[in-house]
């Protein structure tokens, strides 16, 4: 039975009680508890079901490495799955539910999988669901989806807020244990600015639990004094509840601070993501104890020896009253001694080593604990909690020597340094044969911009485990890091710790060493993924030699804990099965973050309105006030249409189009890209950028141009106006302005840097309004100020002057086929001109129109749209735009590429118009099918729809598309199967549907 005792509990406040629920059951804990310690204090041994076999599972660890105790936390908008009970601080009215079972934790149907475990070996999914192929979609996949995943996905929108925080510092110390604190002190004494990140709520680490003496004081008193000293140092910052999540290139460190998880009612953001730049990083991340692989090592009540000690000393929780300790090293004796001194009955210490341990064993024996050397656990028995342990010789196949009733088992397979952060940015590891673990190789650290190491390690993370070694090494590590950034450390004495000699560990990868298959298939390596010794052995037999492949085949070390407990045991088992030494098998790759971090923290403040910047034209707020329906275009919002009360969007678009064609419409074209290209070589430069000749354009005239990339593909189009001999104004698409500006800069700076040209992006300096329709000139003449007659300002000309008293450039260009003036005015005057046009236009029936009307009208005229007719694989020749490609120019960007065989092939799909035989609208993106089947058994395709609309002008569906040999096949009817099951029939026609002669725009 697990319970709270009257003594111990250094981290809890017994004067106050907190209530919480687990699976709806009311429980009590204290401030300072973790959810795990509070559950154990309430004798809740069973906390979840395993992933694959649905085996009953209990808490096995006390920190971030916990694989089993994952819970659904909270409800509604604060619901979060897969939260580790061991790192969840208890708060009043916490609500937790266990995961991965149905219908209940106590009775789980899925547990049948455990009975079928012989049929569910490693690689089961890969082997079983391969055939028959047709079963995948309708049988296997739905079943797998149903049973996959640990916790549930949240259903509600997250109610919390999150933030980023940027910091620069000399030195970051990851880990606030004794080693981290001592490195911080010696680095700070050397003059460095130091930031200490500690993932738990408490600085000081586990030394107060393990005990010892430093500088003549008990370790915990020494740490208290050290913390006081550090808090008084101006150049030291310490953050608890802030995990060093990852180390990246050139000293970038990611910190994950949990601000209010322990106090959800507090104001402010829930998590804070620290983006830190440090000159040096010291990882003092400690070590993680390894489980022992014996049969039944996953039963609730089997726990890491250090965790059992933590629960006792930190939280005053005694996990078992009759405990058996199994170990291969001296450290587990500390647990036995602590339990015994607190009043538990320690039935046995089973030490796998024939000669047992050192002074700690002596002390345990003096306390009256029975110690059996060369002994092992053969099997743990019990259902939902430990009941009995079968004891056998370590060097046996598992024949039981005796069976002992008990209620908890403490196990220790030795310790592995936490090398994750060291490894994130390329630090290499050494195998330490004596301690049987990987530790950082100081000779091969992650390197920075200067080629020197920028990460070092301290304490247990360095591979030191004796307190005396830790304090001496940590003190030195801080000095060295300060030296590495140019500080001159002053002489400060390193602390000295009293030594407790420990006997050498015996590597034990299987218990007992010769365990038979029955035991091996019940000996868990990875609790979270249900991977057993027998699974890794099977993978090895099936030819998996690489540890990375074995990981993916068996799922060893995957999921939320990323194998923090299982890694070393797993790869040792693989190495033994392959008959190779452990270091030659190596480890899997350690990737950040160290433990999962919330998606909210990654998003930070970037949500809703500030997810991305919104660009507004000078007329944006008028559109808003007039109920525009918006369409996002790049970072802009453009009016899609201006629906009137109760008007459907399609009706509004039709009304706007008819009004433009019959009277006059206004379009806010301010988003159009406006790049000014200026200099003696401006013409020569534009000749390289556009497919047609721009250098021959006369001042006062406009020319439509196409721009390709070096691959020959069409990337942008627009009208270029020559302002004067040395200046051009290049209009680009709304979404393309920034890219095209960058494209121009790239070629100017990196290829033709000796050409005398400047480019300036003046997109936001001008508002641009298109006044379009047969009454456009009348409207503008009413405002007055300029001669806009056809004689003075013909099509494709521009002029400067004043309209309604506002300085303006008027371009006679048309994207609709109507008489059209595009008027550019200083941005500050845009709204004034717009409202003047609306006012003056009333008598002409003026209406604003949106982007959809624009799109339909350009399609009626057969004008292409970048992004509709082009998709990055289309060249101008495909679109029948040969007239806009200069034959005279020796070179332009894309010219050479357009001569490549595939580009010059007559079999490229070419632009045509498409007219449904019954007047309906073709589905967007539909493919035209031809005769026969392709290699996949699908209908052969011979074309596709690129633009398709209902044309209110023609009162029928119109479309454009790219079709094989299209222009040669006028009049032919093609089949377009739709995703709605219907087949649409459309005739190939000329892409210009309206006013083929262009008489309407040229008046």
């Amino acid at each position, binding site marked *: 039975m697990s319970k709270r005792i009257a003594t111990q509990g250094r981290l809890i406040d017994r004067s106050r009680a907190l209530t919480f629920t687990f699976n709806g059951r009311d429980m009590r804990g204290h401030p300072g508890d973790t959810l795990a310690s509070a559950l154990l204090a309430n004798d809740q041994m069973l906390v979840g079901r395993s992933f694959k076999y649905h085996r009953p599972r209990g808490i096995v660890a006390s920190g971030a490495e916990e694989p089993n105790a994952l819970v659904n936390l909270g409800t509604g908008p604060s619901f979060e799955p897969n939260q580790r009970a061991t790192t969840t601080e208890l708060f009043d009215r916490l609500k937790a539910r266990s995961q991965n079972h149905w219908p209940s934790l106590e009775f789980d149907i899925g547990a049948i999988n455990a009975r079928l475990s012989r049929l569910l070996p490693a690689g089961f999914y890969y082997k079983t669901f391969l055939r028959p192929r047709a079963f995948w979609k309708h049988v296997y996949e739905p079943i797998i989806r149903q049973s996959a995943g640990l916790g549930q996905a949240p259903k509600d929108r997250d109610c919390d807020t999150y933030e980023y925080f940027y910091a620069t510092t000399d030195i970051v110390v990851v880990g606030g244990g004794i080693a981290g604190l001592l490195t911080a002190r010696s680095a700070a004494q050397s003059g460095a600015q130091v930031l200490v990140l500690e993932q738990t709520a408490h600085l000081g680490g586990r030394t107060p639990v393990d005990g010892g003496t430093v500088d003549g004081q008990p370790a915990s008193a020494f740490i208290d004094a050290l913390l006081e000293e550090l808090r008084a140092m101006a150049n030291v910052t310490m953050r608890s509840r802030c995990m060093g999540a990852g180390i990246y290139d050139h000293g970038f460190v990611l910190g994950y601070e949990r601000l209010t998880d322990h106090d959800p009612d507090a104001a402010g953001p829930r998590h804070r993501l620290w983006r830190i730049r440090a000159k040096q990083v010291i990882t003092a991340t400690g070590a993680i104890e390894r489980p022992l692989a014996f049969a039944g090592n996953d039963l609730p009540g089997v726990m890491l020896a250090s965790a059992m000690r933590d629960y006792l000393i930190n939280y005053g929780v005694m996990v078992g009253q009759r405990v058996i300790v199994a170990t291969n090293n001296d450290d587990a004796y500390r647990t036995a001694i602590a339990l015994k001194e607190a009043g538990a009955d320690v039935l046995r210490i089973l030490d796998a080593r024939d000669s047992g341990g050192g002074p700690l064993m002596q002390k345990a024996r003096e306390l009256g604990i029975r110690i059996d050397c060369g002994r092992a656990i053969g099997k743990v028995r019990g259902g939902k909690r430990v009941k009995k342990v079968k004891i056998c010789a370590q060097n046996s196949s598992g024949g039981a020597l005796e069976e002992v009733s008990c209620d908890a088992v403490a196990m220790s397979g030795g310790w592995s340094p936490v090398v994750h952060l060291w490894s994130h940015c*390329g630090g290499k590891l050494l195998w330490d044969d004596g301690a049987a673990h990987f530790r950082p190789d100081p000779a091969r650290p992650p390197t920075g*911009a*200067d*080629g020197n190491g920028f990460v070092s390690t301290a304490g247990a993370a360095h591979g030191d485990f004796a307190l005396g070694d830790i304090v001496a090494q940590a003190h030195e590590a801080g000095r060295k890091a300060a030296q590495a950034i140019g500080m001159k450390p002053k002489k400060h004495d390193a602390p000295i710790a009293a030594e407790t000699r420990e006997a050498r560990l015996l590597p034990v990868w299987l218990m007992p060493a010769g365990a038979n298959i029955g035991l091996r298939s019940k000996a868990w390596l990875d609790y979270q993924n249900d991977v057993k010794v027998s699974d890794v052995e099977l993978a090895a037999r099936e030819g998996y030699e690489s540890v990375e492949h074995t990981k993916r085949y068996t799922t060893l070390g995957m999921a939320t804990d990323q194998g923090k407990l299982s890694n070393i045991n797993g790869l040792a088992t693989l190495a033994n099965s392959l008959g190779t030494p452990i270091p030659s098998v190596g480890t899997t790759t350690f990737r950040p973050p160290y433990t999962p971090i919330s998606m909210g923290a990654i998003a930070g403040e970037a949500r809703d309105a500030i997810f991305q910047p919104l660009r507004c034209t000078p007329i944006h707020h008028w559109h808003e006030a007039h109920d525009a329906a918006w369409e996002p275009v790049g970072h802009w919002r453009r009016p899609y249409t201006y629906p009137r009360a109760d008007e459907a969007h399609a009706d509004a678009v039709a009304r706007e189009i008819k009004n433009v064609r019959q009277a006059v419409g206004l379009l806010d074209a301010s988003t159009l890209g406006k790049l000014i290209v200026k200099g003696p070589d401006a013409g020569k430069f534009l000749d390289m950028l556009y497919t047609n000749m721009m250098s021959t354009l006369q001042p006062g005239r406009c020319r439509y141009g196409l721009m390709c990339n*070096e691959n020959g593909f069409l990337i942008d189009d627009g009208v270029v106006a020559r302002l004067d001999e040395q200046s051009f104004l290049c209009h680009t698409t709304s979404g393309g302005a920034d890219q095209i500006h960058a494209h121009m800069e790239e070629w100017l700076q*990196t*290829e033709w840097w000796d050409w005398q040209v400047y480019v300036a992006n003046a997109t936001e300096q001008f508002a641009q309004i298109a006044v379009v329709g047969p009454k456009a000139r009348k409207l503008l003449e009413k405002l007055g100020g300029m001669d806009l007659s056809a004689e003075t300002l013909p099509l494709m000309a521009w002029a400067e002057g004043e309209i309604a008293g506002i300085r303006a450039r008027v371009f006679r260009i048309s994207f609709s086929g109507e008489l059209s003036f595009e008027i550019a005015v200083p941005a500050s005057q845009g709204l004034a001109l717009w409202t003047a046009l609306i006012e003056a236009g009333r008598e002409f029936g003026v209406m604003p129109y949106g982007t959809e009307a624009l799109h339909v009208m350009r399609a009626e005229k057969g004008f292409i749209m970048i992004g509709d007719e082009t998709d990055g694989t289309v060249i101008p020749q495909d679109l029948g735009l040969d007239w806009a490609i200069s034959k005279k120019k020796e*070179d332009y960007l894309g*010219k050479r590429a357009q001569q*490549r065989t595939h580009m010059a092939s007559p079999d490229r799909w070419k632009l045509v118009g498409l007219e449904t035989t019954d007047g309906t609208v073709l589905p967007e993106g539909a493919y035209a099918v031809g005769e026969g089947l392709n290699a996949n058994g699908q209908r052969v395709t011979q074309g596709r729809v690129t633009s398709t609309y209902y044309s209110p002008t023609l009162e029928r569906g119109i479309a454009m598309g790219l079709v094989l040999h299209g222009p040669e096949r006028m009049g032919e009817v093609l089949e377009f199967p739709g995703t709605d099951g219907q087949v649409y029939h459309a005739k190939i026609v000329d892409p210009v549907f309206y006013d083929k002669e262009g008489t309407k725009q040229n008046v």
Partner: protein
Amino acid sequence: MLILTCPYCGIEADETELASGGEAHLTRHGPGTSEDDFSNYLFTRQNPLGVHFERWRHAHGCGKWFHAARDTGTLEVFATYPAQTAEPPKTVCDAIRKRRPGWTWQGTA
């Protein structure tokens, strides 16, 4: 996340301030070049584990293109320099050789 010093404005820029532009010192091939030369220019890129020359733009800063000589394995940065050059300047090659004795630009001494 790399830090590169922009040789124009002198700012030690975080990678998030920069836009990468692939391999540096490519020779443009236009009309009149062979199919092989042209397709190599378009598509063939070096991908060394070691010394490499890259194009970067200080996109969220001064807007200038520059080149970086760095080691793709160790992340050591040997030099950054203006992009207006067809090959790395001698000072850059010397800086690389100081750290990687025996290294030569495109295999020539």
